[in-house]
């Protein structure tokens, strides 16, 4: 049986050896149901043990394996080789992040942003577990459920040119997460979170490019979250303008 071969062109960057990143080509046997991550694993096991990248779950849920595949941010464990058949597949580290080695990017900034929006339930007083769960209707759950399914894969940051231009931008996933808590009926932390997301480098930086929502592998739709947060902010601000005089 003749075997198809795919060429994987991977960015290599070895800070201890080379000053600059370069591309290296590997030939990998091609199977129809192979994902890009399988190809990388094949290379690491059989061709070149020095190739460096992150992965774990291989089922699109841990969020570690993001890379730019043919220029588009993707989970390598969820991108099939056959989608790129007949061509050389280019695998580069996620754009807009600084690169530690090969495909591994520095996540400090992203992690910092996650913490910044205080992603936990803020409540005056947590009731003791003996009193049972907080009730929440299916509708209330529905309001934020979509935004709670972010796997922190950072593809959206890599896709967002605004983040690319201005690293200070809070960015899609962090805002979506903030909105997830803002919309959670159990949370009482709006007053704490609003100032953070509505800061200068918060939601207002987003110019609705929308690519974040295109690349998001989990249907989080950060663009929607950002826009809704903007609307909340604007109505809130208008209210606080009107309130003192309106007397309502």
């Amino acid at each position: 049986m003749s075997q198809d071969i795919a060429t994987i062109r991977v960015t290599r960057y070895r800070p201890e050896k080379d000053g600059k990143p370069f591309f290296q080509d590997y030939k990998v046997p091609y199977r129809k149901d192979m994902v890009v991550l399988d190809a990388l694993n094949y290379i690491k096991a059989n061709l070149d043990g020095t190739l460096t990248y992150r992965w774990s779950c291989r089922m699109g849920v841990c969020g570690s394996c993001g890379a730019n595949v043919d220029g588009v941010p993707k989970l390598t464990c969820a991108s099939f080789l056959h989608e790129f058949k007949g061509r050389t597949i280019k695998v580069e580290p996620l754009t807009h992040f600084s690169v530690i080695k090969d495909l591994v990017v520095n996540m400090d900034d992203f992690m910092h942003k996650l913490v910044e929006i205080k992603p936990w339930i803020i409540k005056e007083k947590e009731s003791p577990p003996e009193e049972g769960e907080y009730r929440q209707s299916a509708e209330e759950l529905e309001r934020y459920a979509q935004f709670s399914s972010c796997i922190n894969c950072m593809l959206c940051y890599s896709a967002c040119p605004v983040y690319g231009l201005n690293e200070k931008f809070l960015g899609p996933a962090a805002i979506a997460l903030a909105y997830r808590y803002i919309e959670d009926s159990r949370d009482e932390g709006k007053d704490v979170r609003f100032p953070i997301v509505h800061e200068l480098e918060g939601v207002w930086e987003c110019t609705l490019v929308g690519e974040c929502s295109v690349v998001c592998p989990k249907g989080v739709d950060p663009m929607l979250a950002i826009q809704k947060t903007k609307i909340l902010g604007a109505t809130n601000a208008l209210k606080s303008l009107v309130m003192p005089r309106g007397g309502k």
Partner: protein
Amino acid sequence: MIIGGGAAGLRAAIAAAELDPKLDVAIVSKVYPMRSHTVSAEGGMAAVLRTDYDNFDLHAYDTIKGSDFLADQDAVEFFVKEAPKESIRLEHWGCPFSRDPDGRISVRAFGGMSVKRTLFATDKIGFHLLHTLFQTSLKFENIHRYDEWFTTSILVDNGRVDGVTAIDIRSGELASFLAKAVVIATGGCGRIYQFTTNGWIKTGDGMAMAYRAGVPLKDMEMVQYHPTLLPNTGILITEAARGEGGHLLNKDGERFLKKYVPNKMELGPRDILSRAEMTEIKEGRAFEGPYGSYVHLDLTHLGAGTIEAKLPFVKELAERYLGIDPVHEMIPVRPGQHYMMGGVHTDIHGYTGLPGLYAAGEMACVSMNGANRLGSNSLTECLVFGAEAGIGAAQYAARQGSPNFGNPVQGLALEEEKRIYDRVLKSERGEKISTIRAEMQKTMEEHVGIYRDENSLKQACGLIGDLKQRMKNAVVEDKDRVYNTDLVSALELDFMLDVAETIAYAALARKESRGAHARTDYPKRDDAQFLKHLVVYETETVPRIDTMPVSITRWKPEARVY
């Protein structure tokens, strides 16, 4: 100091940080905590919330029967009582559980559970649980994280734990962490096997580290196979698919389980279902595909509504990885390694017996799972015993003086540095790590799989011993310091070989069939000789096996029929 950022590790960290705000808690994890493998749990977590039809005794009985009476019953009783509190706490911290129309948390049926008591968040409970815990942990200023630090050994001196050594993966430097108390929660070791639901990072590091520190491993022969994995990748199709009413069919379109578990059918426990599938395969009633034999999981009669509302992830996985729409087509599945019942021996407070060392989660063995874990008990176990271990460690730390970094400990750290950089990293000639890894996985799959016998196990013990020798000369191709995943893999493989060896030896010693441990040469359960735990100690040569009694409180062993 906590090693591991999965469900158990994070819960321990929160418990410790809450107990004593002045305590400095460190979480050391080889991946960012939200990447931990807890993330991939799908089905749900068990706890008695519906007291109108459910109670603690029933949950305890189900668990004990599921365990084939090898579970410690005091641990199980403690577990079922704490389970509801832990679940409610998780809800209070924001976990987006699926809800009933009246706003209460919904529950679903699960294998081996006699009533509906499994809480769920669609079919991504692990993901939501992990992210909820992680995000909640960010609230505590006294929790410090060391993300992408790989722990290599536990520092023990004078009969007590003084800390650990760990590599900062990013810079490649080894550092010693001094700690008054250490909780290990490094998860399972499924990667010892070829065909597993477990992620790349599940390499049994903590088990091996504790083992090397002199702590025994318990129930290691009990390896759970899950009946429904996608044949090509080992991706798990959650038990919830059966809990919601899915059927298993053989080649003749027959619900073959009626021959094996007539009363429970698809809701039978995992060990029995996995063996039933193997029998169907052996007797030629399965389908043949490019990735071996398989049976069908049929969800088509559930309808698009149920599948989309309750099993969206199953749909996503089947569509993405098989190109199959479960609403209209059947999903091919076969059994594969899933979970380790065994692990580091602890008491019901997570204490390992080595002063200062606590353990929790899949890598620990409080022994509430015995010879077979019931689906959805594990996540709850991580919370209950994670919290216990965190509290235990914090209380112990409060009683202790500062750890000492005197000569013996410093020496240990230096020794560790030499082992890693001079021996593992420097060796120039020898085999590739991937070769040895592949052979180990093959050995375990073939000889220590669903069915075992004297011959196969003896062979496995020998083969693993050889591999351990060959490992001494294995080559790490990447010689750089910065982010050296090749080095990490070598250290992981080194850990895995130790763990694999304990599994093979324990399996050889248990000459009976119980729960997940099925010996073809001893097909019957033998309570007279083997109603006890096997524990494995490290020695200079081969592992030494000892026994420990099973605690039995109220439920006398009986035949296990479903």
